[in-house]
């Protein structure tokens, strides 16, 4: 069984895609200790069983709100086989921010380019193949309301779970930041408790940003005094 997490900005049609994939049958509960709904459903595609987990709708993966923290913790700690990032094709720029954050987190991303019909009505022509090449992850155009692209999406999920490729996309933060990132990564690699659990580059970038949740994770490490020296 492969575990598939659904994520996306609010209002991109995530629930509709969840229902399309699971046939609307879901186990509804709460995330442990949080008053945020957790929906889990099942889907069988060409003999492959999938567990679909609906993550909260978020604009980014900073650990500022409970929703964002749940989404991020799930991806970092539980490491689902595939993360389907549902992006609104009619408002792509805003949506790609989350996509890039997921890629930085080294999640096994498949992008569902939803509301493709609306984007077309608005006169946008999106080259899904080129977008896929630039991001280094599969991109599937979908229209959740008419179930268009659902079979292709399921195919892409199964394929991604088998191959488990890492996107080669690397955001260049400029010479000065990159030098600091490199030093932080070296330190992080010295502590297997950190380097085995989290992508080292992601951790380094978040440390530089002063991400409270990440700082808390690193403060307990033996390399913290040296890390603190770098990010001071």
């Amino acid at each position: 069984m492969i575990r598939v997490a659904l994520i996306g900005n609010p209002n991109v049609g995530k629930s509709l895609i969840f229902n399309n994939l699971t046939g609307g049958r879901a186990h509804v509960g709460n995330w442990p200790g949080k008053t945020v709904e957790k929906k889990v459903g099942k889907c069988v595609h060409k003999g492959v069983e999938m567990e679909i987990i609906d993550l909260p709708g978020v604009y980014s993966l900073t650990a500022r709100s409970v929703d964002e923290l749940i989404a991020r913790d799930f991806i970092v700690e539980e490491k689902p086989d595939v993360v389907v990032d549902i992006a609104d094709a009619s408002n792509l720029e805003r949506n790609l921010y989350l996509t890039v954050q997921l890629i930085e987190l080294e999640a096994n991303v498949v992008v569902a380019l939803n509301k493709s019909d609306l984007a077309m009505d608005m006169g946008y022509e999106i080259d899904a193949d080129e977008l896929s090449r630039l991001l280094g992850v599969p991109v599937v155009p979908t229209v959740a309301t008419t179930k268009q692209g659902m079979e292709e999406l399921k195919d892409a999920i199964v394929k991604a779970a088998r191959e488990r490729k890492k996107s080669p996309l690397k955001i260049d933060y400029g010479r000065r930041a990159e030098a600091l990132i490199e030093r932080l990564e070296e330190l992080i690699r010295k502590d297997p408790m950190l380097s085995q659990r989290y992508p080292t580059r992601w951790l380094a970038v978040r440390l530089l940003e002063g991400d409270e949740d990440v700082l808390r994770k690193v403060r307990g490490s033996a390399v913290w005094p040296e890390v603190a020296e770098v990010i001071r």
Partner: protein
Amino acid sequence: MKMPLAMLPEGGEAVITSVVAGRGLARRLYEMGFVRGERVKVLRAGPGPVLVLVKGSRVALGWGVAMKIIVDGGEAP
């Protein structure tokens, strides 16, 4: 003419020149699309919350937050 976004009249359009805020708020605003060079339109002016169109989405900002976003509205009307 440069001014805070909060001072833009209803229906007014402008380009963001800077965001004068602490790290946390600045980051939040960047994520919502309030970045330098971005065009914004005021759909509903204050006093009180300001409704702004940015990157194709409507965002309501508190008056105080809208004061921290500096825009260039071009020629004074």
